[in-house]
């Protein structure tokens, strides 16, 4: 039984945690891809920026959340989303819009976004230093231990407070995005533009507004993903290069330009990562006595060591590009 609890803690919960974060990040990337037709490499740094804004605000008002009974960092999240959305719109105005106006190839925009990545990284490190910092400045990280009502299950299922916030906020964000894209006028216009930009423009849709709205949504989602990730572990300014690959893999797995696909892709990549680094011999241990003698169980049966975690999204990316480049849900842009 304890082995099963270990499995739930290490695979089900941590897989959902990283899956949710990848999902939110990938939705932003895929929206930008479907509207502006380029892979936005600065997305992971927008996530870091959002988390950094939360860190700054939390350090400035450490006691604000205590009166409402929530961690200050969660309380500051809407403000950080606003700031990151403003940053995203500003970046587009300064860096991407002139390039688009020149009619460059999309790959030039990709290089431009790499430049923006470095700018953001430099700025964040300049102001925050290079070390890791906790977003829980004045609060305490609650840890919930759920004991299982079974005989022989001694180890409890462990869920931390930020993980619960993470699941709730992910759910809210996905539902809100779904309602926005399907019910609101602006959301329908966005989908029209992703299907066919010329036709959308010809039918009277203001493409500049759509681009701005896309950046606002992408920025706000990036702030959510970055903050929730930093809440779960700690705030680190150099996360981006490790986040980019899983996020892009998630967006491509789900089919580029396909927001629901990106959510699915995020969970696929998140669970694949945790399943690959999970030590499977733990689950086989209860059956050790019934195994034949010649089959000696090694103590470590993980597919890859945790230090090679980044291989997993890459492998998924390669596999999907080889067998189904349009993604699981037939993305539109290819």
């Amino acid at each position: 039984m304890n082995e099963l609890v270990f499995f739930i803690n290490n695979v089900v919960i941590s897989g959902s945690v990283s899956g949710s974060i990848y999902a939110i990040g990938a939705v932003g990337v895929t929206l930008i891809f479907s509207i502006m037709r380029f892979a936005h490499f600065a997305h992971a740094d927008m996530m870091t920026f959002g988390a950094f804004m939360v860190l700054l605000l939390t350090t400035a008002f450490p006691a604000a959340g205590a009166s409402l009974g929530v961690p200050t960092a969660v309380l500051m999240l809407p403000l950080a989303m606003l700031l990151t959305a403003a940053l995203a719109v500003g970046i587009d105005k300064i860096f991407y819009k002139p390039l688009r106006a020149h009619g460059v190839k999309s790959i030039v925009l990709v290089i431009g976004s790499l430049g923006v990545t470095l700018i953001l990284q430099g700025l964040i490190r300049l102001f925050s230093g290079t070390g890791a910092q906790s977003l829980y400045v004045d609060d305490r990280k609650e840890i919930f231990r759920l004991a299982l009502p079974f005989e022989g299950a001694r180890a409890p299922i462990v869920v931390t407070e930020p993980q619960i916030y993470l699941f709730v906020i992910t759910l809210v964000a996905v539902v809100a995005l779904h309602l926005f894209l399907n019910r609101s006028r602006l959301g329908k216009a966005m989908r029209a533009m992703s299907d066919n930009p010329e036709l959308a423009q010809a039918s009277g849709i203001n493409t500049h507004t759509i681009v701005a709205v896309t950046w606002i949504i992408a920025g706000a989602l990036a702030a959510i993903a970055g903050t929730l990730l930093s809440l779960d572990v700690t705030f680190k300014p150099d996360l981006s290069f490790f986040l980019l690959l899983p996020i892009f893999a998630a967006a491509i797995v789900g089919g580029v330009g396909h927001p629901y696909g990106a959510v699915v892709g995020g969970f696929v990549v998140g669970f694949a990562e945790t399943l690959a680094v999970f030590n499977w011999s733990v689950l086989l241990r209860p059956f050790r006595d019934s195994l034949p003698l010649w089959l000696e169980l090694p103590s470590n049966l993980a597919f890859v060591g945790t230090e090679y975690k980044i291989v997993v999204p890459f492998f998924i990316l390669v596999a999907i590009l080889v067998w189904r480049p349009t993604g699981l849900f037939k993305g539109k842009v290819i």
Partner: protein
Amino acid sequence: MSNLSKTRNPAYTPQDATPTRSFPLRELILFGVLLVAVLAVYAIMGAAYSTRMLVEAACYAILALGLTIQWGYAGQFNAGVMGFVALGGFCAMFFSVPVNDAFWGTALPGEFGRVLLYGAAAILLIVGASKLDRLGVPKPLRTFITVVLGVVLYLVVISQLREVTDAIEDQAGFVGGLGLPPWIGWIVGGALAGGVGYFIGHICLGLRSDYLAIATLGIAEIIKAFLKNSDWLTRGTATVSPLPWPTPGPAELGFTLSRAIYLSFTAVIIAVIFFLLNRAYNAPWGRMIRAIRDNEVSAAAMGKDINKRRLEIFVLGCILMGLGGGILGTFNSLFDPQGYLPLNHTFLVLVMVILGGPGNNLGTIFGAVAVYIIWIMSEPLALFLMQLAVMFGESAFGWDAPSNMDSRALQARVLVIGLLITMVLRFAPKGLLPEKIKSHS
């Protein structure tokens, strides 16, 4: 594609240049300024330091030439130069470091070879299983058998490999080198980088160009993670040094002279590469590559095999990066997997290429040397500016500066590289020495 070319700005589209050969005034001025800068560095920092800087700049020039044929000749964006450089550096280390008797004198090589044989046998079995449908096995069953067999055999082989590598680490430290001349390592490094490039290019080059950038970014991080964590092969964070030079080392001739010899050695290699690339650029092959870059559809209509040509050029660029990485690694005389950073080995090279002039080999070499000098000199400059800011802040506002100011000042260089990339793309998309397009009207 077609709607893009209609809206394209004239600054980005190649225009017919005048067929008359004009006096290379721009080149002369830029290289003159570069010469003055180099002499100034020699005057201020001393000969040994400056020669080191020039050798490193020369190594970066090889990397930049590799990137310029990918980006400038063919419009492919490689965001993982670092990975290919690290592969080259690893091969230079592996081939040139003396033989480790603590490994080769024991039973460990046999054990290791046995695991490799197991791995080969496992691959054969899996490939065999994937062909089972030819024997009449239904396809879903075949796929199921292949996947299960793959997972089980992979786990068996990998756990065996873990045992052997742990034993190597415990008993011998690390595998050691082969004790061969470094240039063999450079060539093998180039070949290995080319092989990895073939694998990536084969998958991505038929798809959107963005995917290549994502995949190369990923493979670079994977190569670095592998080299950093495989202590049995590379000693990981413990680093390997010294690496022998193919030329007389500093111990025999002193720093300046030995580095100068290494520099001339590197310069000869660059000259050969430069000559061959220029020949290739002006040859029908180069014209075809540029035709594919400028208008893929019409090149395909002319019957050119676009994906094959793209793969050729991508692999060629990766080979140059591996070679340059090997030469750089040997010169540093230290193999430190953690020293490979995206900023220093990917984005710096990118800036060299787009600032110097993508597609123009001379411009690329100019960009490499100029940017490297700025990069090296920016370190003391950033520290100085930061100290100035701190002093000003303390005296004017009583600001209490954080203690890790030095490490933060170096982060400012990340910012500057990023700004440079975006500014060049915006204001000088063709670089300082633009590609010259010949027209035969």
